[in-house]
């Protein structure tokens, strides 16, 4: 379901006409002037990413949407597949790409975009791929597209140097491609006319709740960067007294307490909370759910989603999730709280991809934002469960 809140660009449903062709210099200048950043999660400046790519590259559109709570790429490929293709073709022409691919995740219907490819005889190769939480990670995706198992590779050889077919490879999120398609038509000033000066443009927010009561109208909404979190929740009909906290950025993201509802959804607006807009996930936690139980379930899911390749992730994530789950039982051993902290610090920076770091970040955020709830559990209480041991 699509929500309506203010700024419709990607989701306006307009026929924008043919996309312009740009030279490599023209492309970099335009993207630089626009301030566009990657909408897939990491938020890296797109101009810098394009500039770092060597000659004769492979361009890959990333619509794996591996983030469980994200639904934006699915919506884009259903309602505006032409914009995603435009973005890919603009990059392919400007960079004289050897090949151009679009990786579509298993939760997404590749039908509409394949139809578009056929109609316009696009050179874009559409691949419909399965895979879990880390399947959309750049090097895992490149390995998969090259016919190897979809596992992350050692970051010492980044895909921008050696990726698909051993060539320099530019991997760009589907939403970023669609943003580029409009930017190329309407220019940097238009792009910057919404959002904040530091973080311009719009982005797609996937809004969900832990219950139907706390988010009565879940869906994807396009808003200006910098839109207060409160306004986004209002658009979904969230009764604020029912909410306890909001997870921003996804399962590798950050819990925001209700006191942070006026935080602008932009990089600088979320920075004081240690959060980023990430891939645009906003997930509201019902007051009636135990935040530690919910977070332990997420941590367990993330532990199961390890690619199973790197020792600290394979061993550390299950132990961390299990320790958090034990802490989520009222009357838990008080030594479990520092043990969770030790484990989240232990796994950081120790994997080929960011999965251990992202999971540790989420767990650290849980311990910080729900510190009062941890103390209650140690006293044998849980106000969410309404019982004491």
């Amino acid at each position, binding site marked *: 379901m699509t929500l309506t809140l203010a700024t419709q660009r990607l989701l306006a449903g307009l026929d924008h006409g043919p996309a312009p062709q740009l030279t490599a210099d023209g492309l970099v200048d335009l993207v630089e002037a626009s301030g566009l950043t990657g909408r897939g999660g990491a938020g890296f400046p797109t101009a810098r990413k394009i500039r770092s790519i060597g000659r004769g590259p492979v361009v890959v559109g990333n619509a794996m949407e591996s983030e469980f709570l994200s639904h934006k790429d699915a919506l884009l490929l259903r309602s505006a597949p032409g914009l995603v293709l435009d973005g890919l073709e603009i990059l392919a022409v400007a960079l004289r790409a050897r090949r151009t691919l679009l990786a579509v995740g298993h939760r997404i219907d590749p039908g509409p975009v394949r139809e578009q490819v056929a109609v316009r005889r696009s050179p874009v190769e559409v691949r419909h791929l399965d895979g879990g939480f880390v399947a959309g990670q750049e090097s895992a995706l490149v390995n998969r597209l090259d016919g190897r198992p979809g596992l*992350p590779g*050692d970051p*010492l050889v980044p895909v921008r140097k050696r990726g698909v077919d051993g060539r320099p490879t530019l991997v760009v999120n589907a939403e970023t491609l669609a943003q580029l398609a409009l930017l190329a038509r309407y220019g940097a000033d238009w792009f910057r006319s919404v959002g904040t000066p530091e973080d311009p443009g719009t982005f797609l927010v996937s809004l969900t709740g832990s219950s139907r009561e706390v988010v009565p109208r879940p869906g994807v909404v396009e808003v200006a960067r910098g839109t207060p979190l409160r306004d986004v929740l209002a658009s979904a009909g969230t009764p604020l007294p029912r909410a306890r906290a909001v997870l921003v950025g996804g399962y590798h993201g950050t819990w925001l307490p209700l006191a942070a509802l006026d935080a602008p959804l932009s990089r600088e607006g979320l920075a004081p909370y240690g959060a980023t807009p990430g891939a645009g996930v906003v997930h509201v936690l019902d007051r009636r759910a135990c935040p530690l139980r919910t977070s332990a379930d997420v941590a367990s899911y993330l532990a199961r989603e390890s690619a199973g*390749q790197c*020792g*600290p992730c394979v061993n*550390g994530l299950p132990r961390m999730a299990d320790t958090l789950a034990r802490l989520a039982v009222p009357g838990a051993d008080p030594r479990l709280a520092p043990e969770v902290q030790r484990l989240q610090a*232990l796994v950081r920076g*120790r994997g080929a991809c960011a999965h251990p770091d992202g999971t540790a970040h989420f767990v650290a955020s849980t311990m910080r934002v729900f510190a009062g709830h941890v103390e209650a559990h140690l006293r044998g209480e849980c106000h969410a469960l309404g019982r004491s041991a």
Partner: protein
Amino acid sequence: MSPGPQRLHVDWTRCDGHGSCAELLPELLALDDWGFPVSRTGEREPAVPAALEGHARRAQKACPLLALRLISAGTRAP
């Protein structure tokens, strides 16, 4: 040609927790709960002081899976 300052890089896709690196280079590496190396300096890729370079090279050679590498300080993993 002097290789310049070096850092230790663990290729986690190869490392299987053999543990010889921490044995040969205890100043920079410890082992975690499961026997995988963990940096003692807090850096993701600990810098190798000149005095320890010989030990670091020995640790690199001792890794049966070629998971430990000495890299020049400029080539930072993204």
